[in-house]
């Protein structure tokens, strides 16, 4: 993990809602593994003081003149809006690579990657590594609507099977990833599942994996204060080994990749982002 002031090589707007930054960061690119993230400080603005964590989307160790990493994000608030205003040659303060990466299986061969919306980001780099290790990779991307599916063209390219679901039916199968998973697991002979997306999806994917006795690695998102293990903000409720006690485990340095079976899904407070139950209801 290092801290550096890095230059932005390029900025690109993907489809409707996603932004792609390519950052010149040779030391980070050298050691970054799939599932790890970087923590970026928004451009000088005293209103938003904390860094924003971003999964690593792609790594290019043989860039045009130096190694680069790529991150993809959407605008959630003022901090990410400031990041979306960055352009080529701008400098940003970045810390990384951070966290426990996805584990690449030693003997198991067939891997299903399940991505919910922008949660698909770390699965692109993972797919590359899995393919490099001679694994079969299948992809299942789900989103609310077609333009929230992340880079389906590349996903089709690296997926032996590439299935898309949208809740409004605007692309692929109408519904959710979990609606098609049972069938896909059979068809692909899946031995390992990797998932990243909203907690509700990760929980459902974990339960389906458990039903089929397939291990599920989930990459989890969290609000972070520091992103390097000191503030205890980003904890997840995790069962201890005896499975009789829930402990709070840091997402940043002990995750963001967890064994889905160890997450205490029932312990989550009601989703603070859910647009339900207005005041007085």
């Amino acid at each position: 993990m290092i801290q550096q002031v890095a230059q932005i090589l390029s900025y690109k707007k993907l489809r409707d809602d996603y932004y792609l930054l390519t950052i010149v960061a040779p030391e980070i690119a050298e050691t970054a593994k799939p599932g790890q993230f970087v923590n970026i400080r928004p451009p000088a603005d005293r209103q938003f003081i904390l860094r924003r964590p971003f999964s690593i989307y792609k790594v290019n160790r043989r860039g045009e003149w130096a190694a680069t990493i790529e991150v993809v994000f959407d605008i959630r608030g003022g901090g990410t809006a400031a990041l979306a205003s960055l352009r080529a040659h701008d400098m940003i303060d970045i810390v990384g690579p951070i966290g426990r990466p996805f584990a690449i299986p030693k003997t198991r061969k067939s891997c299903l990657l399940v991505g919910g919306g922008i949660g698909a980001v770390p699965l692109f780099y993972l797919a590359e590594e899995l393919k490099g290790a001679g694994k079969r990779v299948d992809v299942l991307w789900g989103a609310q609507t077609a333009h929230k599916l992340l880079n389906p063209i590349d996903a089709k390219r690296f997926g032996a099977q590439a299935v898309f679901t949208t809740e409004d039916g605007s692309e692929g199968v109408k519904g959710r990833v979990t609606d098609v998973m049972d069938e896909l697991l059979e068809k692909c002979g899946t031995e390992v599942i990797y998932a990243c997306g909203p907690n509700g999806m990760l929980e459902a994917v974990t339960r389906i994996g458990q039903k089929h006795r397939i291990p599920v690695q989930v990459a989890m998102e969290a609000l972070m204060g520091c992103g390097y293990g000191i503030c205890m903000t980003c904890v997840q409720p995790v069962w201890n080994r005896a499975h009789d006690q829930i402990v709070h485990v840091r997402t940043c340095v002990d995750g963001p990749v967890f064994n889905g079976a160890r997450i205490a899904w029932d312990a989550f407070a009601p989703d603070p982002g859910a647009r339900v139950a207005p005041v007085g209801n």
Partner: protein
Amino acid sequence: MAAPDLSIDLAGIRLRSPVVTASGCFASGKEVSEFVDLKKIGAVVVKSMTMEPWPGKPTPRMAETPSGMLNAIGLQNHGVEHFLAVDLPWLNRIGVPVIASIAGNTVQEFIYVAERLTGAPGVIAVEVNISCPNLEDRNNMFSHDPKATASVLASVRRGLEVPLFAKLSPNVTSLVDIAGAALDNGAQGISLINTVMGMAIDIHTGRPKLAGVVGGLSGPAIRPIAVRCVFDVFRAFPHVPIIGMGGIMDSGDALEFILAGATAVAVGTANFIDPQSTTKVNEGIAAYMREKGVNNLASIRGRVKVEG
């Protein structure tokens, strides 16, 4: 020109630098040591430890607010035994002085932790955290009441040989009375300030943004409050060492605290944003001393120019 002497005297202890860490904003230093040489700072004030491990509060534990952050962690920590077995030996190997922050729900719990720390190697002082806003009964925080403050300090004092600092809350009407109660009952110094109690609400869900409902505000948003608290307590007790903190982001902020009356300055939330904050503050203070011809920090402590 020789490098300026940044060393200070904190309750009889010589520290190489006035820059220390704010409890809870540095863990026990291990993670931060990937980014900074801990030996360059005055001391590590570790995260508050309790008698038993504490699980902390559910999530979400944090909400970013203008120029600050609101947290309700609930003092999640591994307990004093883990500190003695794991964190302290590591800090001693690094060779950085340690200020142990202690917390508890009852006076008995404070006493237990203080007794366990008696004679612990490398612990140069104990900071008594009687001002965490995220305990079960936040309206009965010890530091909200001079009597409760006195009882904790007097109980902890017995047995401990190192200086005691009382970490106080700004959420009170008469801070000076509470500081006085702490000093009359065994505190040698005062740490100012803990977080300011606050709340943020998600208007779409109608729910608080923190699972703990209310939390403690930190960051530059609270700095003027903290500077005023240090100023008031220094005016009332000019011979008492003060560790000043609250939204220190750079050396300029730190110097404000020193001019207001702080002996040492603690960097807190800034560590989250820039892991090298402590050493950057250190370097900035040295540059200021060179520029202004300041030979030692004691000569500018509390020297804010106030008429009358």
